[in-house]
């Protein structure tokens, strides 16, 4: 039992019992397989230069993966080929020296975060089979090195926060908490994202400081592709799946806001307050997550019949539902729509590069979907235009320039107040449309659907997001109230338009039903 002694040495003896499956594999292995395993772990160990607790855990991850492969009768040689130590590269044994100033959009997030709220978004892939945690863990370990911005921790400078590279084991977790719960980013090498799994779903919950929805999608696609490769599938690096053995490109980490053309006029952050939906704000947030699954063909057809884009149609439905959920008011209903700036300014950045426009309609003008669609379409074209976005980006840049010499100690309380209170008051809701997510054809067959969830906001009762993969489009609502008026109306309007909708979601988190006994 040479290997037993080796494991005892590496794990401090505590995890030997947990490694029973692996030990069984090792004990029953042929001499040549034992040699391969010894060599593999020696190589792996030499590639990890982290504190002992991380190193032990990472070696245990490899053993867990091998035990899984053994359970499905995969030969040791093939198993070791799949999880070959070269996939680690030198990432976990080199001294981290990189650091990244925050991009213009990210600067506000650490200033406005609170213990109970952080700007977190969540992307999930639903696979066709239940997740194998041991392989997902290794997939994450291998994938992170391709995304240096994710392998960071948040630090405080004199004038701005920044993200500083850190090395640790990036652990996956089973999903046991409410979605988009704030992350603990205060410790020495705390990460600003989490990967959780539940049944056949893998979710990335990411602090907006690192990336936007598009960057998050690339990360998650690459992670899932690597996970599928560990399962023995051949997945090419196309359609936004990055090659994890390649070096990260500098343009993927750039602050793309610097590429914009400055306009003479910069405006767009201040506006009148808008109508808020009724319903008492829940004590626990999100109050509930809801997903409405559509068939993309049906949705396209409905949009075409109304001479509109899918975004415009969804906005129209949201306006009608919002009106129903809002007490009669003389204020406008405004919906914030993030705009991906990459469509105007080509950039490979995987960091934040989006602005937003505001679509607003007076309460009295909202009757039904068909009557408001032309107004929405017009506003989307005008307010989402490149010129308008450049004006807003100029304003953002001017604001950053104005505040760059103000110490954090002064900036933080003001920014928190402005962002948390004024920012939310300006909108009734949000619709973030991630668009169609493309994945390699070889990967598509293993993905059932995808969803995209926004963090709950301070005042808005519902934050909505939309994403399409394959033939399924998913509209998600993050609720901050138990009042069901908005989603009920949204559902009925969809049905009245002839759309078939499957509704899924979470428990109401205020109810005791949502709590597990364990």
């Amino acid at each position, binding site marked *: 039992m040479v290997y037993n002694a080796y494991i005892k040495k590496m794990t401090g003896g505590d995890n030997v019992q947990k490694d029973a499956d692996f030990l069984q594999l090792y004990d029953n292995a042929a001499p040549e397989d034992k040699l391969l395993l010894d060599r593999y772990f020696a190589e792996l160990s030499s590639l990890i230069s982290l504190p002992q607790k991380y190193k032990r855990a990472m070696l245990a991850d490899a053993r867990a993966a091998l035990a899984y492969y053994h359970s499905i009768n995969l030969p040791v040689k093939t198993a070791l080929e799949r999880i070959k130590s070269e996939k680690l590269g030198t990432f976990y044994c080199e001294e981290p*020296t990189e650091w990244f100033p925050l991009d213009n959009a990210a600067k506000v997030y650490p200033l406005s975060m609170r213990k109970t709220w952080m700007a977190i978004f969540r992307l999930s892939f639903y696979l066709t089979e239940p997740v194998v945690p041991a392989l997902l863990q290794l997939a994450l370990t291998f994938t992170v090195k391709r995304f240096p911005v994710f392998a960071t921790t948040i630090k405080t400078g004199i004038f701005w926060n920044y993200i500083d590279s850190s090395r640790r084991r990036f652990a996956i977790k089973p999903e046991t*908490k409410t979605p988009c719960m704030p992350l603990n980013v205060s410790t020495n090498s705390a990460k600003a994202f989490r990967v959780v799994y539940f049944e056949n779903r893998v979710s990335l919950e990411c602090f907006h400081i690192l990336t936007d929805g598009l960057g998050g999608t690339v990360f998650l696609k690459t992670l899932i592709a690597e996970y599928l490769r560990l399962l023995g599938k051949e997945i090419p690096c196309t359609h936004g799946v990055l090659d994890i053995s390649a070096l990260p490109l500098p343009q993927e980490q750039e602050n793309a806001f610097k590429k914009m053309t400055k306009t003479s006029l910069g405006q767009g952050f201040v506006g009148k307050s808008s109508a808020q939906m009724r319903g008492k704000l829940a004590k626990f947030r999100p109050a509930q997550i809801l997903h409405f699954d559509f068939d993309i063909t049906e949705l396209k057809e409905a949009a075409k019949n109304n001479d509109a884009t899918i975004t415009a149609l969804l906005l129209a439905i949201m306006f009608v539902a919002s009106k129903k959920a809002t007490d009669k008011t003389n204020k406008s209903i405004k919906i914030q729509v993030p705009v991906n700036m990459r469509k105007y300014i080509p950039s490979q950045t995987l960091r934040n590069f989006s602005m937003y426009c505001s679509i607003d309609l007076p309460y009295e003008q909202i009757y039904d979907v068909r009557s408001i669609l032309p107004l929405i379409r017009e506003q989307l074209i005008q307010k989402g235009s490149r010129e308008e976005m450049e004006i807003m980006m100029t304003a953002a840049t001017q604001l950053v320039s104005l505040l760059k010499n103000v110490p954090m100690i002064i900036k933080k309380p003001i920014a928190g107040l402005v962002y948390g209170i004024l920012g939310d008051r300006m909108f009734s809701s949000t619709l973030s449309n991630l668009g169609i997510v493309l994945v390699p054809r070889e990967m598509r067959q293993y993905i059932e659907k995808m969803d995209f969830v926004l963090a709950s906001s301070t005042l808005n009762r519902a934050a909505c997001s939309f994403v399409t993969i394959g033939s399924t489009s998913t509209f998600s609502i993050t609720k901050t109230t138990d009042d069901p008026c908005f989603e009920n109306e949204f559902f009925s309007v969809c049905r009245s338009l002839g759309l078939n909708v499957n509704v899924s*979601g979470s428990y109401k988190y205020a109810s005791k039903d949502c*709590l597990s006994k364990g």
Partner: protein
Amino acid sequence: MQVKIVYPKVKKRAPSQSAVHLVFSIIFGIAAVVCGIVNLCVGGKAWSIVVAASLLVVWRCFFMIPLIENNLISLLTRITVYTCALLVLIGVLLSPGWSEFVITVIGFSLIITLTLIFVVSFKKQKRNFITVAWVSLAALIALICSAFGLLHLGWPMIVLGSVAGGAIILGTALMRKQLLLELKKRFHR
């Protein structure tokens, strides 16, 4: 509308505005106001300000925990700085003449402790050196002030200055080029 549950039951819900925070803020607020009223009624020294400041220190140290960089070095520094501020207040309002001596002793004890933590777990703490540097710099400024007669130049002040100088030299020797990089990060605009 039927909702199919696709999320697990949770062990922990997202934190709400903590009831504990609310209760303590009410208790602290009432205590501060009552002390102020009693102090005004009975007269004498302004001890109620010290009570209010003490409550504020407890609040800042134990209820308003920083969300970024809440490491051992910054935690110790924060608690010590607030405590020293409270001692200054006690010295000014209640019993003058001793606080400067005590604060100086606390100051060099803090620098020694921080330097020990920094050196013992250098790999883990090297990116937190800036806090040690700030405290040491403040100590050196205090020494310069005392050299110009603005503060009392006793043995504690000399020890404080020496320990601070030592901490900076040691940190610089250990960090070398990394110190410049660390400063660049911290001061970037």
